[in-house]
């Protein structure tokens, strides 16, 4: 009783509470909501309005020509989306499995060479070959230029996540559980899949979330390794549209339908289409993300 009362007394004054709230609301409205409305508003604005008055939030003349134009060229967008979805799914599944399968053995106190193998991974924090030899390993040694596989492989393992998962396994899974499963005759791999992985789901989910975000938002791998648009993911496609509008190049059909292509509005329509799924999934992601981050910080 006394504690609750103290908690209620010990608050900032009403005035400062109102001031802080106003500050947050203004900053969020200005920098985190307004920009999105400008993008969305512009994508629904007639191109000629943008040419005359620039990008703005409220369309003076509402038009869906940008979207009609983009969807006419939808083949490339859908393809790029499929590349993103495929690399994200395969990369996350494979990557998280690989990292967990490395982190679990080095978390086991009865594994004789666990220190050596930890060091083997941790050394990569300090020693690095840098970007240039790394680039040539993938292009010249492995010969993966312009393949789908090269959009997946380089991000499979992040040693930081191995450290996080190792801590998670070492502190979150009682050795007795593993011991008794062994006595019951379960093999190591079965113990890992059906007991350890289950107990570590919160940790695995956090790592999976980070990895998903990394693949979904990546433009660097296709920037380095993809030579043709066939192998672009959605972010790289968006970037190429921003750079040179080669995507917007006129062909006979588009000339007939759009004598004056709405290039400025179409850019923003592409931006909306490129971000849409991430923003729709955001509330879901955000919740687990915050949970995972908080958990990671507590665990160190």
């Amino acid at each position, binding site marked *: 009783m006394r504690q609750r009362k103290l908690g209620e007394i010990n*608050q*900032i*004054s009403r005035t400062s*509470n109102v001031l802080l*709230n106003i*500050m*947050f609301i203004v900053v*969020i409205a200005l*920098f*985190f*909501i307004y920009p999105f409305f*400008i*993008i969305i508003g512009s994508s629904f604005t007639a191109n000629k309005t*943008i040419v005359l*008055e*620039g*990008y*703005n939030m409220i369309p003076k003349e509402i038009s869906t020509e940008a979207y009609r134009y983009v969807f006419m060229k939808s083949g490339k967008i859908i393809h790029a989306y499929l590349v993103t979805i495929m690399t994200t799914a395969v990369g996350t599944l494979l990557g998280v499995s*690989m990292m967990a*399968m*490395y982190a679990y*053995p*080095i978390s086991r106190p009865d594994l004789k060479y666990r220190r050596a193998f930890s060091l083997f*991974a941790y050394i990569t*924090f*300090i020693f*690095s*070959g*840098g970007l*240039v*030899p*790394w*680039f*040539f*390993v993938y292009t*010249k*040694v492995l010969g993966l230029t312009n393949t789908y596989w090269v959009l997946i*492989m380089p991000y499979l393992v992040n*040693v930081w996540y*191995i450290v996080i998962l190792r801590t998670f396994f070492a502190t979150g899974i009682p050795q007795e559980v593993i*011991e008794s499963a062994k*006595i019951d005759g379960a093999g*190591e791999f079965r113990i890992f899949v059906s007991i350890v992985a289950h107990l570590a789901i919160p940790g695995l989910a956090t790592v999976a979330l980070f990895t998903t975000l990394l693949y979904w*938002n990546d*433009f*660097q791998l296709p*920037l*380095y390794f993809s030579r043709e648009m066939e192998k672009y993911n959605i*972010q790289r496609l968006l*970037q190429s549209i*921003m750079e040179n509008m080669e995507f917007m190049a006129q062909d006979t059909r588009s000339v007939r339908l759009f004598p004056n292509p709405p290039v400025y509005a179409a850019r923003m329509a592409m931006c909306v289409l*490129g971000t849409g799924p991430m923003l729709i999934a*955001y509330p879901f*992601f*955000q919740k687990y993300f*915050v949970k995972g981050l*908080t958990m990671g*910080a*507590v665990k*160190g």
Partner: protein
Amino acid sequence: MRNKASTVQVLDISQKYTGFKGFLHEMSKNKVLYLMMLPTIIFLIINNYLPMLGLSMTFVRFNPAKGLLGSPWVGLENLKFFFNTNDFFTITRNTVCYNVVFIVLDISVAAFCAIAINELRNKRTGRVYQAFLLISFFLSWVVINYIFFAFMSVDRGFINNSILAPLGIEPVRWYSKEAGPYWPFILVFAQLWRYTGYNTILLYSGLMGIDKQYYEAALIDGASKWKQIRYVTLPLLSPVIIAMFLMLIGRVFYADFGLHYQVTNNSVAILNWTDVLDTYVYRALRGSNSNLSLAAAAGFYQAVVGMIIVYVANRVIRRFDPEKSLF
């Protein structure tokens, strides 16, 4: 009970083996565990260890067609050439200065937001603010470039058309040379905009770990809210801040490629203000007039200096908090 005794016995036997025999015994005993590690071992050898050997390409005139061993040895020539360019100074200055400013502002802004959210009377609104601040963290740099472009495009941008024009100010050509001095501010803003939400959550979870009794004790001693923040919150949050600081210091020689490449719209005119090691190496490697020797030298420089900084930072971490250090 009997089973347990027998496992203990097995453990005892395994310790009798030494040397190579012990190695084989351990490998066969835990072969499943070692096999599980194999994919990542192979990955690390290819992705991390092989490029380390590749650093030797700094000392040859690298010819991709002939490979590393077929290229002629030139010793320190590439490095000398790189150190004598003007770019060497510019990109070193930019990389380090940007990172130092980012570290200071990231931590102080996030600490302010985390403490402010923590002090709000209504906890639920605090969570809503956190969710909004985090949105930008989920956007790719490509999309962020689109957003900035909608504001800063010379002839269609919101700033030139809807803010400067009504005020009668001449439009600014944001992506060209004359606007260069604005760019440090734009990049710092973009970086803060993207990462504040993320850093706020990290520090906020540190605040959650502070025992409420400290505040009650401080209140009974008559400490005002300001004094509580100054003498309870900040000192108890400082381990988290120091850990964050040292982690970021370790990366001071590496830049955020997406920030410097995408947000600048890859504009060459403003490179003096925006170019960093990562973008420099990229252009030397893949740009329209690429120069492999220069790329190798700059990459070598970044890898070696970066390595020294990480090592020192880690030694310092170990002094503060041995559990957080890696070595």
